[in-house]
C-alpha cells in the first residue's frame, strides 16, 4: 500500500468524526485531530477501532497514545502493517 492510499483511507475514516470541516479541507501530515479537526476526544477511540477494522491490525495502548495527528497515525499503521 502506498502512502497516498493509506492517507486516503485514513481520511475516509476520520471524516465522519470531524467537526471542523475547514481543517479537513486543509489536511496535511501535521493536522492534529483535536486542535485542527475538533474531533471529540471520546471519538478518538472510534478512529482507532475503525483503523483496526480497515487495516486488520491491532492498536495497543502504546500505539494509541500517539494517534493524535495524521503523521503519527500513518506511522503507527505502517509499523503495524510491517509486523503482519
Amino acid at each position, binding site marked *: 500500500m502506498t502512502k497516498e492510499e493509506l492517507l486516503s483511507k485514513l481520511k475516509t475514516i476520520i471524516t465522519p468524526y470531524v467537526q471542523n470541516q475547514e481543517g479537513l479541507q486543509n489536511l496535511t501530515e501535521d493536522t*492534529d485531530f*483535536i*486542535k485542527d479537526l475538533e474531533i*471529540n*476526544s*471520546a*471519538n*478518538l*477511540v*472510534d478512529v*482507532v*477501532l475503525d483503523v*483496526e477494522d480497515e487495516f486488520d491490525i491491532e492498536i495497543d*495502548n502504546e500505539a*494509541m*497514545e*500517539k*494517534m*493524535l495527528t495524521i503523521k503519527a497515525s500513518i506511522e503507527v499503521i505502517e509499523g503495524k502493517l510491517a509486523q503482519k
Partner: protein
Amino acid sequence: MIGNDIVDLQLAKIQSNWKREKWLQKLFTERELQCISSSAYPEIEVWVLWSRKEAAYKAHQRRFGFKSKFNPKSFENQNDAVNINGFRYQTSTHQTQKYVYSIAKIIGTEPFSEVFEQEISVRAQFADKMLQRLGDSSLISFRKDKNGVPILCINNVPSEISFSFTHHGKYNAYTVIF
C-alpha cells in the same frame, strides 16, 4: 491545578456508541469496567467515569506541561479520585438529566465553577468574572502555550491562575482557582 469536562448526554448518544465492540475496553481499566457493568445506569456511569478522566488529564497536563497524548487507560478512577502514575486528583461530578459535569483538582484546592446551558462564549463569561475580581481597569486576554493549554493574561502578562474550559453540544463551563 484543575481540569473540567462536560458531556452533553443527548449529543453523546448521537456521537458515541458505547456498546460498540472493544469501545469500552480501549478507554477503561478493568476496575472501571467493573463499575460500569455493576451500575444500574451503565450509560451514565460511562460518562461520569470518562468526564472524570478527561478532567484529570487536563489538570495533569496543566501541572506538568506535557505534549498531548491519548492514553485514557493510564488514568484510573478510584472512588472519588483519578490516579495517574501515583498522582491523585480529587474528582466531583454534577449530574443532571441533560449533562454530566466533572471537575478534577489537586487535594486541598477549592475551585469556583459555572455551567452555562446555552451556546455562549465561555471565555467571555470567564473574562467577565475575572474582571469583577480584579477590577474593571484590568485587561484580560488569553494565550495558548506550546501544548495548546490556554493561559490567562492580566494586562498582557501571563498569570499563574489555574483554570479550565469545557464545551460539548449545548453546554459550556469554566472552573478556576482564585
